[in-house]
């Protein structure tokens, strides 16, 4: 985004404070344009006026240009499941934040039998991993054309589309691609891929069907040439695939191409390559070796490019040892560094506790809190959970760093009035805070019990230690 201040946006707005956008003032709307929670196009009076008045139209176009993301944003799919990729502004997350998490697509191919296709689609759609208060899920399915038969491909694409997830259509043959697009172009799939060999046909398909298209070439001159050609012809939804080579010099080359593309787009201000980048960790399955090694290497390639600029990926392995680390890494890299992942401190009663139930304490780091809370809740444990404000730090770090101290525990106990809610004086602290046991006892006058290192073990621990003897 070229402009940084709401005031600069405000100057382009009608300044009538009409409230149609849902905000009280144009200034407030402008602030949300800057933080990217609304789009300029959400200002209806401006858009309507632009349709009538060429001067206003010019103003609107200027504003759109000034507020455009550094890297183009491309939407794949429609409705609630649609996924946005690209739209990034910076090279390093601490400079602002990364906006659209890398989209994860998992492959099926059209010569698989229908039952196997259904099984894989079911696994993609139903995948869930609990993490900081929510479930992490997968984004979409890439349907590869291995039959080279437009009819079969179309049939399989139709079947897979019925799962409602965004799709990548993987076919280099224009006839096969066309057959699939005839079936599901209205679902806004991503075409994969236009190459030096088929770009004319794919350009035509992109224009005819108005769907996003991936351009694929190892040669960055060619890749840029294709991007310029497609844009000139009127295609704006472009994804760049600089070709993922899974091994050796090839992988080193891939690393260089991906980084150079993004660096040149943002730092070098080259708008002709400022598009989302496709990486295909699935290429790891071309290397020699057993399935475990291939899956491991697939996770390695994916991780490398989750950290460095991959906006959309095609995976083969749905095994947890590939999915869980990569999806967790994606969450970590794409959390907003400006707002630490923390929850409100205070007292949280778990499972309708009685005055006889135990009192626990944990930190307000979202990960710690949700882990403990879900372990207690799902374990059917009744209790009182004190949440200490450690400025969003976990137990170990906050004990070491002085955010988790006996005096702060005392303050929290006083604020929450926990002593009046229970008829005992036992506080259970995390195993990782064991060294504070004595200090908290001195400070609060309560008996402090050192709980397990991991809250997953609280249940077994309570069986032995509660009620205290």
């Amino acid at each position, binding site marked *: 985004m070229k402009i940084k201040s709401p005031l600069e946006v405000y100057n382009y707005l009608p300044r009538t404070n009409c409230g149609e956008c849902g905000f009280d003032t144009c200034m407030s709307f402008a602030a949300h344009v800057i933080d990217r929670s609304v789009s300029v196009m959400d200002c209806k009076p401006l858009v309507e006026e632009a349709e009538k008045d060429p001067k206003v139209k010019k103003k609107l176009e200027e504003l759109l240009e000034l507020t455009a993301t550094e890297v183009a944003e491309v939407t794949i799919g429609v409705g609630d499941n649609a996924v946005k990729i690209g739209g990034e502004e910076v090279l*390093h997350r*601490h400079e602002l934040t990364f906006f659209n998490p890398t989209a994860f697509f998992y492959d099926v*191919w059209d*010569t698989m039998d229908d039952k196997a296709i259904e099984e894989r689609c079911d696994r993609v759609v139903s995948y*869930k*991993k*609990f*993490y900081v208060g929510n479930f992490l899920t997968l984004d979409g399915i890439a349907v*590869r054309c291995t039959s080279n038969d437009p009819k079969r491909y179309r049939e399989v694409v139709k079947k897979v589309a019925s799962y409602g997830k965004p799709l990548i259509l993987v076919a*280099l043959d224009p006839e096969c691609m066309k057959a699939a697009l005839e079936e599901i*172009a209205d*679902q*806004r799939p991503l075409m994969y891929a236009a190459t030096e060999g088929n770009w004319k046909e794919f350009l035509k398909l992109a*224009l*005819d069907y*108005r*769907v996003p298209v991936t351009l694929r070439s*190892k040669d*960055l001159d060619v890749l840029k040439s294709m991007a*310029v050609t497609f844009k*000139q*012809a*009127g295609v704006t939804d472009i994804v760049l695939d600089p070709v993922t080579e*899974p*091994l*050796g*010099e*090839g*992988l*080193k080359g891939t*690393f260089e191409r991906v980084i150079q593309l993004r*660096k040149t787009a943002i730092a*070098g201000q080259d708008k*002709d*390559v400022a598009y989302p980048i496709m990486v295909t960790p699935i*290429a790891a*399955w*071309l290397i020699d070796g057993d399935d475990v090694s291939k899956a491991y290497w697939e*996770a*390695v390639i994916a*991780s*490398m490019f989750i950290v460095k600029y991959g906006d959309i990926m095609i995976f*083969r392995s749905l*095994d947890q*040892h*590939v999915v869980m*680390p*990569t999806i*967790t890494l994606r*969450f*970590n*890299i794409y959390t907003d*560094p400006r707002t630490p992942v923390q929850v409100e401190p205070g007292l949280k009663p778990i499972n309708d506790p009685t005055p006889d139930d135990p009192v626990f304490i944990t930190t307000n780091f979202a990960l710690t809190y949700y*882990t403990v809370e879900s372990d207690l809740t*799902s*374990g059917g444990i009744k209790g009182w959970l004190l949440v200490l404000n450690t400025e969003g730090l*976990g137990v170990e*770090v906050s004990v070491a*760093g002085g955010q988790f101290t006996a005096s702060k525990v005392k303050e929290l106990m006083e604020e929450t009035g926990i002593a009046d809610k229970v008829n005992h004086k036992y506080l259970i602290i995390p195993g990782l805070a064991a060294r504070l046991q004595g200090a908290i006892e001195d400070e609060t006058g309560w008996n402090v019990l050192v709980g397990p290192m*991991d809250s997953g073990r609280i249940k077994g621990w309570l069986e032995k230690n509660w009620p205290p003897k």
Partner: protein
Amino acid sequence: MATKKFTLEEFLELLKKYNVEEIEGVKIEGDLEIEFEGGAGIDLSAIAPLYSMLSEFGNFLYHANMALGYLQRLSAALGIPTPFAAQPAMPAAPAAPTAEVPAVEEVKIPEELIKAKFEPYKEEYPGAIEEVVLGATKADGGSREYTITLGGEKSLAFYTFDAPQPHLPAIAIDVFDRRPMLAKAVRMHYDDVLDDPAEWAKKCVKKFGADLVTLHLISTDPLLDDTPASEAVKVLEDVLQAVKCPIIVGGSGNKEKDPEVLEKAAEVAEGERILLASATLDMDWERIANAAKKYGHVVLSWTQMDINNQKTLNRYLLKRVEVPRDSIVMDPTTAALGYGLDYAFTNMERIRISGLKGDTDLNFPISSGTTNAWGAREAWMIDSPIEDDTPWGPRELRGPIWEIITGLTLSLAGVDLFMMMHPIAVAVLKEVFNTLGGKVSGGVSDPGEWIFMEV
């Protein structure tokens, strides 16, 4: 005027039958009928070249969007405006961008690609990361067979297209002077050596390919065995005898005891240029740094994920103790994947960039306690405690990869030295470093083969 309604198929038929020069006042109606007014005459010969293309689309003309697209092309080809003003309601179609009717512009597919040259943006930093040598050979008064050099970068990690990277990250494997708590998947690889640190160190180097060994003297912890410093360092002497790689020595983390333990370690390892782990702000860092200086070792400057504290401690070491610039390595703290890795990554990345930009308080090599990854429950727990989670699969496979991804991520932030434990994690990360460092030749013959593979 009387109007006649046609379906699209009838329209195609009509094109066949009549010679029409122009179409005027074409209207499209709800159920995809085309209506046009009055005595239109169509010149078939004028559109003959288009005809085969048009009939290709015939099999999906029932599809609303396609039919519209077809009409636009047809009208464009015939040079008549598409009557959007008269466009009636479309058949119920999903609210997709494809359902929008684009403005009529003649679609021109160019014959050739528009040639463009990609000019990569080159980044040059004014600063450089200090080079720090660990270990000393006979020539330098030690007994190591080789040394390890950390640092020397002039660009971000593995950005060899911006500047050459003289040294790839090194990997140290952890050894403890008493049985530590270890995840089962890690412990199984060390079961035979857990009570013998010297043998343990040998195994790390000979079997698992460690560049260095980190000896943690945890038995000195007053809450554990409270081993006296003078006794604990005997294990260090054993390890120095057993292996010929550079050595890192760690204390127990006890703030009162560590300075004493590390001082003693520095003394018995005189000349070997070991890395003393660690000096921290909340203990007697001065004593540890002085010991490093006195006996020619390197000091690990450890802070808790805070760039300002890291800067402060480094300044203390440089200014107050006058530790030489080539004798400091930093540990800004490693949090595991899923457990604060985002903080660790960004903190290290900021430190590295500051160093490259010329901040001489921060341009030291970075070390990571990657073994911390094993604290993540995803690495060691049998399965998810959350009922709705997709099952977690075998932990033997999850654990090592948790350590790999933690290390890999931090290597991209600029870490130069990894302290690790699982042999597979060590092997895979080494392969990653060698690959990105340009030491692995070859690749696959056709990286596009996955597109068509039938497995």
